[in-house]
């Protein structure tokens, strides 16, 4: 399986080529957590996660919902 390298939350990470944002959430173990996903500064809406394919060198950030005060 061909791999690509992305930056996930500031760290270089290898993932299978063709992975979607939804796939990445599963790989990162974040598919059951409430997170916002940012790819190259653009927020990926939940409905668009399966159709958004990640590319080499993409900058991906998973932002956790923090509701406390």
């Amino acid at each position, binding site marked *: 399986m061909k791999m690509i390298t992305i930056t996930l939350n500031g760290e270089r990470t290898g993932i299978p080529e063709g992975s979607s944002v939804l796939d990445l959430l599963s790989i990162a173990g974040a598919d059951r957590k*409430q997170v*916002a996903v940012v790819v190259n*500064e*653009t*927020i990926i809406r939940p409905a668009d996660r399966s159709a958004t394919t990640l590319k080499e060198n993409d900058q991906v950030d998973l*932002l*956790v919902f923090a*509701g406390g*005060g």
Partner: protein
Amino acid sequence: MPLSVEQKARYARHLMLPEIGEEGQVKLLHSKVLVIGAGGLGSPAAFYLAAAGVGTIGIMDGDTVDLSNLQRQIMHTTASVGTLKTVSAKTTLEALDPSIRIEPYPFRLTVENAPGILASYDFVIDATDNFESKFLIARACHEAGKPWSHAGISSFHGQTMTVLPGQTACYRCVFHEDGAPFGATPQGPVGALPGVIGSIQAIEAIKYLLGIGKPLTDALLTFDALNMAFRKVAVRRDPECPVCSC
């Protein structure tokens, strides 16, 4: 009006900063900031705003002080357990500086009361502890055109961003209501965590009021206390945001 002798002494450390000086201090004394939530985040935010000489500080919270609050909510004391947080906050802040005005709002922000209350303030601080309030503040500040600071904390991490309505990415651009864990039980947080994030909110308010520096806009600052790591994640406005694209 020029500063009094007492004010010159009180704010001496501000007066020596070229970014503030007497002109900036007078500006702060004439400014109004609304702090929504008088808990973990609201305590340091309101405390530092009061110490800085922000002339009018609104404190909104419908709760009373509980003993379990005192591990992190530093505006309140053992003696204030059982009293309204707005009353406790007013007592504490007026003890720090009797010349500033503290406006208590001993109830929650609602769709109905938001426009009337927000109208008279220059800046709003979201120091609430639940998602319902955070999404409500995002919408209310956008509709009122009020700049504001979002923050949220949980266990050992926190996040904050500043929003200039209609100009920069808003909370709702980043976090979607259909993904929010409404009603989730809060985790922790570790006592000093809101001190870090709430203080950043106070600095953002002061910078905005003075028109100095670069605001924390179009970015979410995240803080991981266990690894002592800050990250500033750039975000763009969502052209389809149901709040700020309308």
